[in-house]
């Protein structure tokens, strides 16, 4: 089983994407199945093992929170752009990571870029720090606390690392 299906999630994703891109016919489903089984076996050797999702339900909650935050982020940045009078107060913030695995850090960095007024600027993985550029922030410590509470803790629980 492990040899035949090394990465079940990747297989599922490949199947879903192939079916999404083409029409829903039995032939396409067969082709998608073959590709979903074959590609993971072919690329297995290049693939570094990543931490697996331990709490799928938490992941779902995380995605929903993220989608909501993206909408809020847009409204907030729009307000800043349209408020012509006020100059924003930008900042570079050094965020100390408590995650260590590359894949969760990638998700965290992407999340930071998609959510209110922050963009992840640079990662030093050996130092365990992430540089963040914030568009309009007064209190940098509050931002760090918020990111830790809202995104990093759930990610830690999801990946159990």
């Amino acid at each position: 089983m492990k040899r035949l299906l090394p990465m079940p999630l990747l297989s599922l994703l490949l199947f879903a994407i192939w079916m999404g891109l083409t029409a829903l016919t039995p032939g396409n489903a067969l082709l998608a199945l073959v590709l979903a089984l074959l590609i993971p076996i072919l690329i297995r050797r290049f693939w570094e093992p990543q931490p697996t999702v331990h709490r799928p339900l938490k992941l779902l909650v995380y995605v929903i929170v993220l989608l909501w935050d993206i909408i809020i982020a847009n409204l907030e940045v729009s307000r800043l752009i349209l408020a012509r009078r006020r100059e924003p107060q930008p900042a570079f913030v050094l965020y100390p990571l408590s995650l260590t695995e590359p894949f969760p850090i990638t998700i965290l960095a992407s999340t930071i870029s998609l959510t209110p007024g922050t963009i992840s600027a640079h990662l030093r993985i050996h130092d365990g720090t992430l540089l963040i550029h914030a568009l309009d922030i007064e209190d940098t410590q509050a931002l760090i606390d918020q990111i830790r509470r809202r995104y990093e803790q759930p990610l830690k629980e999801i990946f159990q690392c």
Partner: protein
Amino acid sequence: MTFMPDWLAPWLEGLIAFLLVTGGIFAVIGALGLLRFRDFFQRLHGPAKNSTLGVGCTLLASMLFFWLQTGDHSGRELLITLFLMITTPVSAHLLTMTGMHHRLRRTERTQGEPYELGSERDR
């Protein structure tokens, strides 16, 4: 130009129209953000967020429209939205790094310092 089938319920039509116009507005605000701010790092924020949501709204409208009209519920547009949501942070990250590498000017109000790139730790 047969884009108004009779059976398309008015409120669904309204929803699609709303999504289209909202998408357009977000795109314009994102472009305004690109024009308005003083330094490069601030300018990145507008497009990185608003353009994505703008196009996301349009894609949602398109998906809804084709779903209602032809019964095609494959949701292929969601794939583009998903792809954009994955790629935008990556390109924003790389652009910021490029900006820091070129030591671009930033406004005096900026708190904190960007890195000086180029040391061995950044490899």
